């Protein structure tokens, strides 16, 4: 403790400090998370270790409690905002240090829909898990998805929608990919509050991801399959 009664993060050992980052992420304390990231880096931690052990693990706990109905959207948003602040510090360092890459994802909210909270969270968690993420933003027509796939050659296409009225547009994108003979070149993951597994199956997506943590796990497992196929060939 410091003289004014506040916890001095510098006084904590590494293990305690990482635990504290998890707690501060959970409580949405952005400045504290930023400070802890700087301290860990100062102690010689690699940016990748800080990212995975402190930030990503902290957000995983937040995700579990959100799924279990212990945390609600506002708290998750505050936590995500804190993680974003930590990521902001780490991103250039990760690039400079050549952290391991899992794969590449193009992600965007579909045409007619401007909701991006979930999509942004998925993007951030995917980045945290080592994916390169190209975020197309909101209200994306099929042409924009196609152009991005052409330009960036991702492994995964992620589509998000929050509205019952806009989620059918995902099928438009997938059908267009089929018409162009490019559907099987990509893993297509879909997500958003009104979606479910049946819907994902019906529109021809590879998987429905109910939250950011599931998106990361699903993406990783598809990348592992792809890697195994390439090794076998």
């Amino acid at each position, binding site marked *: 403790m410091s003289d004014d009664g506040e916890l001095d993060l510098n006084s904590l050992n590494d293990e305690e400090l990482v635990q504290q980052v998890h707690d501060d992420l959970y409580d949405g304390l952005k400045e504290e998370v930023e400070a802890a990231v700087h301290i860990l880096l100062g102690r010689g931690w690699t940016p990748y270790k800080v990212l995975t052990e402190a930030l990503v693990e902290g957000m995983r706990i937040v995700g579990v409690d959100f799924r279990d109905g212990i945390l609600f959207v*506002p708290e998750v*948003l505050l936590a995500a905002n804190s993680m974003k602040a930590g990521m902001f510090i780490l991103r250039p360092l990760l690039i400079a240090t050549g952290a391991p890459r899992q794969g590449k994802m193009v992600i965007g909210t579909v045409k007619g829909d401007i909701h*991006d*909270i979930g999509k942004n969270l998925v993007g951030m968690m995917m980045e945290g898990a080592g994916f390169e993420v190209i975020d197309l933003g909101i*209200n994306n027509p099929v042409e924009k998805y196609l152009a991005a796939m052409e330009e960036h050659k991702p492994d995964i296409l992620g589509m998000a929608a929050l*509205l*019952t009225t806009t989620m059918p547009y995902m099928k438009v994108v997938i059908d267009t990919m089929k018409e162009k003979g490019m559907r099987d070149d990509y893993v297509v993951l879909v997500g958003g509050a*009104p979606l479910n597994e049946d*819907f994902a199956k019906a529109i021809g997506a590879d998987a429905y991801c109910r939250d950011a943590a599931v998106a990361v796990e699903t993406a990783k497992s598809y990348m592992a399959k792809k890697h195994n196929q390439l090794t076998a060939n």
Partner: protein
Amino acid sequence: MTLVNLKPSDEFEFKPGQGKVLLLACGALGREIVDLIERNRWTAFDLQCLPAKWHNTPDKIVPALREKIREAKSRYESIFVLYGDCGTGGDIDKLLAEEGIERLEGPHCYAFFSGQETFAKTAEDDVTGFFLTDYLARHFDKLIWEGLGMDRHPELLPLYFGNYTKIVFLAQTRNEELAKKAMAAAKRLGLAYEYRYTGYGELERDLKARA
């Protein structure tokens, strides 16, 4: 069926617990439904509402609807559900298909108050519009401002509303107080304000067909 033993000048007050057709509705429509029943002197209806705050947690709607339907089915001639899809991703429709029950047409109350066709026509221009109905204007503070945690964390405002450009107030009644509230909500969110009077739209039409 309309009431015939009252003079047109007599007040008609809706009394729950009577009527052969159960209207199972979102609480956000309760006031409007009662108003329509009383204005039209419909005696066929009974009304039960589920919490309107489930607007923010749609996964609670279907299990509660199922329970209400199963509990009420034997006691009424028919049941009519007054919900849109309301963010359930088709789960309300799946349930109603299993139970053989109809609901109001359309994805949400914005569409059936505006009229499905009108709503579809303006959809592109309204893509950055956040809709308020009378109910949402009346309960903006509780349901939206506090419900989304912006009272405790105003810093969340740009995360929730950063992509919106306007509030579109779809008014069911010509009520100046509500219009002022909707305008104040727009100001608070830093958005432009647009007023559209819709009346009760297809809600009235669909109830009339079952009265």
